[in-house]
């Protein structure tokens, strides 16, 4: 069972990001764009992340996600944290901070680990893009 039992158990920070995620969407795959994916709908949560990278700067970050409100809000928060920053910001991103800020129940931790997976893959891809 989830620890969440009603809409009143979600923080306003979650509600705002879940109801109006500014970074939901996708980017056209060009030479300066990377895209990574983790999870599956079958297992209840899945995310695809797109980053447009220029000179080690993340110019734009977009995501698409299937999952619970916390997962969508956390994906939005990840994009907020890294857009406009260097790739190092993505490297420094920790799921524990998002878990704490959004008060995500421990029972949903495995979904946050998917965000970590997608972020790590993106770092690798972004570094490849920089090298190229």
């Amino acid at each position, binding site marked *: 069972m*989830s620890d969440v039992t*009603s809409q009143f158990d979600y923080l306003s920070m979650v509600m705002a990001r879940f109801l109006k995620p500014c970074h*939901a969407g*996708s980017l056209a795959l060009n030479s300066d764009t990377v895209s990574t*994916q983790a999870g*599956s709908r079958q297992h209840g949560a*899945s995310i695809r992340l797109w980053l447009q990278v220029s000179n080690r700067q993340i110019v734009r970050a977009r995501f*698409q*996600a299937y999952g619970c*409100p916390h997962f969508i809000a956390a994906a939005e928060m990840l994009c907020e944290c890294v857009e406009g920053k260097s790739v190092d910001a993505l490297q420094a991103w920790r799921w524990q901070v998002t878990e704490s800020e959004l008060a995500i129940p421990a029972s949903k931790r495995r979904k946050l680990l998917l965000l970590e997976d997608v972020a790590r893959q993106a770092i690798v891809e972004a570094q490849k893009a920089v090298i190229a």
Partner: protein
Amino acid sequence: MNTSIYLDYAASTPIDPRVAMRMQECLSNFELQGNPSSTHRFGHAAREVIEKARQQVAGVIGAKPVEVIWTSGATESNNLALFGAARYYADRGKHIISSKTEHKAVLEPLKKLEKHGFHVTYLKPDQNGIVHPDQIRDAITPETILVSLMHVNNEIGVIQNIGAVGSLCRKRDVLFHVDAAQSAGRLPINVHEMNIDLLSCTAHKIYGPKGIGALFVRRHPVLGLEPLIIGGGHEHGLRAGTLPTHQIAGFGLAMELALNERDTDAIRMSTLRDKLWQGLQRIPDIELNGHDSLRVPTILNVSFDGVEGESLLLALQELNLSAGAACSTGSDEASYVLRALGRSDQQAQSSLRFSLGRFTTEQEIDIAIAAVTREVTRLRSIAADVP
């Protein structure tokens, strides 16, 4: 938020104002405040109110008033029926038959009985949620003492063939318990014609107060039951405790109103439910859960492919509804009822139960259709390209 539409009548109905007024009369009349078991005038007055309500409840299910035992609700009624009958008749056999789609108030007592040496067969319904009487006939053994089957499923609204099951149970000398929490007052029930031995019902599903219910216990021939609560010997020694006069009066009137208004309510509800279903069907990739005709008009359960259930429920801020049974709302576990119908975890998890009632309006249905269409489209768009 200005709009807040209640579409969770299967979880609980609001109290009908006429019922609330009746309860208020009881609560404000000093002469009705006595203990109904007392022999003085105040006790007698309270007792009269209770016996009138007992007649009202009995009348709706075709029982004799003496066969109605007051409880705190359907959960207690189910517990009393299952534990009471199993313990009383344990020397006859220790096999019980039920189904995988029963309410937790039946499944949990059965699990506990299993721990105490009883063997329970949980029948799997067909893909429409129907348990066929043949399945029960085939499952009965010489050890079988009890069959417990819900009349109407609380998540998908399908109606079981209680009369046929009752008939074969009676022929095989097996007790038959029916959880009628969702049907008493909504569907015609005659416990004697349907060969029902025990029947659970509750007030708060038919516009009565929470905290009061009843168990029908067959008296001819008398059925043995071991009580769960003992004390002052109330309710023929089957359920001790001072009776709550105002709750019982409210339950009685709610049942009478349900009976009087059953046909008009059913026509109105069917119209609204059909309108809702027609509106929702404009959304691609949705599926109705449960039989399309053997169903009550008040419940519509729909799977929305490609949408996560908890997200959909939260996104529909203007609607008050459930993903399934109220006890599992907000859970990311898929409904065990829908899984028993053969739905995948994902399908079961992407489902909503819309339950309509006496106070639902056409305008509310229009708002619900628009809100669900908007949010399903939005959430599908957020998840468009993820595998």
